[in-house]
């Protein structure tokens, strides 16, 4: 399980988050804080978390991306991505256990 920096317009905003197969969808949906995911694009779930960070899931391929809010100072972006990733992994663990 890894968190890898991906391309984004600003440095340090997009991170690829590996999650266990079969648990990614539930883990991502758990980030919504009760809100509905954005499904503007077919096949893509986008969650805007209460803290402003986003989590995206490509349903067909299972790819998960964390998008750190662009207002986050550059030096704090990695730590924020790691915090969101830890929550995603925890949610994935719970999803697999239930």
């Amino acid at each position, binding site marked *: 399980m890894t968190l890898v920096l991906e*391309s984004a*317009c600003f440095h340090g905003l997009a991170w690829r988050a590996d999650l266990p197969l079969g648990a990614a969808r539930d883990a991502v949906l758990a980030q919504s804080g009760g809100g509905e995911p954005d499904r503007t*694009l*077919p096949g*893509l779930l986008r969650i805007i978390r209460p803290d402003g960070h986003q989590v995206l899931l*490509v349903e067909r391929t299972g*790819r998960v*991306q964390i*998008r750190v809010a662009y207002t986050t100072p*550059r030096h704090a972006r990695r730590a924020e991505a790691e915090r969101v990733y830890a929550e995603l992994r925890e949610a994935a663990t719970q999803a697999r256990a239930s």
Partner: protein
Amino acid sequence: MTLLEPHDLTFMAGAPYLYHCHHYNLFHDQTVDDVLGEEAGQRVRFEAARAAYHGLLAPLSARLDKRTPAERIELAQELFRATGHGRMSLDITADGGTARGEYLHYGYTWSEKYGDAVRRLETADAVAAGFAAAATQVAFGLPDGSIGARERQCVARREPVCEFALSRRTPGPGIAAPVTEEDFKRHLGGSRGGQHEEQIGAIADALQGFVKGVGGDERGLVDAFGVFVTLHLANYYDQTAYEAVRHIEQAAPSSVGLCEALLREAGHVCVFNTFGGILASPEWEAVAYPLSGDPLEIIKGGAAIARGLGFGRWSVDEYVPGQRLVMCASSNYEAPFYLARYGRSDKPRCYFFQGAALAIMVLAHRVKWQEKPRLSQALYNELFRGAGLGFEVTANRCATRGDDCTEVVVRAT
């Protein structure tokens, strides 16, 4: 907002618009300043933005029946935010006033991109200045050229906010009217597709549907595909680019080639950052396909993205992997402007399209997509500023010259 469907060109209240990201926008502006010098560059960019926004805000206010200055100012501010340019607060009368900007696209993104490494002395927001002047003109029923603007504080200079002083002036002679949807229609030929048309068209349709639904957030920035984009006016890009070229043609003819090369490089910057960013995004993976490393995916994707962003109907006429790409634009946003403003050219003038087609071939063949590369400045330098691009581009046909379409050939060197 209308989509001129067979041409993949978009208009708002008759004003042609498209989407570009901050990497391109900053490079375009820098090119204009490099060619004209900073003072003249700022002036040309401000006047182009003022004219372009005047050409949008005046008909838009009329169509939406916004009659009072307060209604028109509110409309202008909301439009600016919704189109990804940031937040502007206008405190104005018919004689001018002040404008205050937050998260302005140019200043804010310049600071994000370069602020840690470069100390900037000049202001960055000629577009916002032009917008503020145009909004004042339209609010109070003044002709274009009646309001001047000076950015007296700018976050790109590490000042706390962006602030503009607006003042009344007598319009100078020779202010050209912006090019409109009707002008575009007069100068567009027939529309046609190319190879892989069904797939390119389907992806382009999905992208157009997606971008139509995106808008500025509460700070006035648009994040689509992980890329910060603006809905921007073709008149701005075209007028600034072509005025720069025409100035050099008169003042320093021996430097024309350099100027044209810079405008082509703006196409490289756009394709590398915006097209590349879109291709690498989850949105692309959902709407099109995950990238396997097959160069054809990038070729097809390039044509589809161009259409999706409102650049015109770009198509693939011929493709030989690693060797040759023939791209055709039966429509684009450069040629109709040139023809309407200056008449027929004696040489190809679609510089952005030329550079973009070349860059699509470079992205297709020199980027290892399956390794999920980061599209960093270092990679850009390696691909586009290193020993050689590996490809060269020639314009075979160009609508600005009276040809029925614009066609470029990219060949391996």
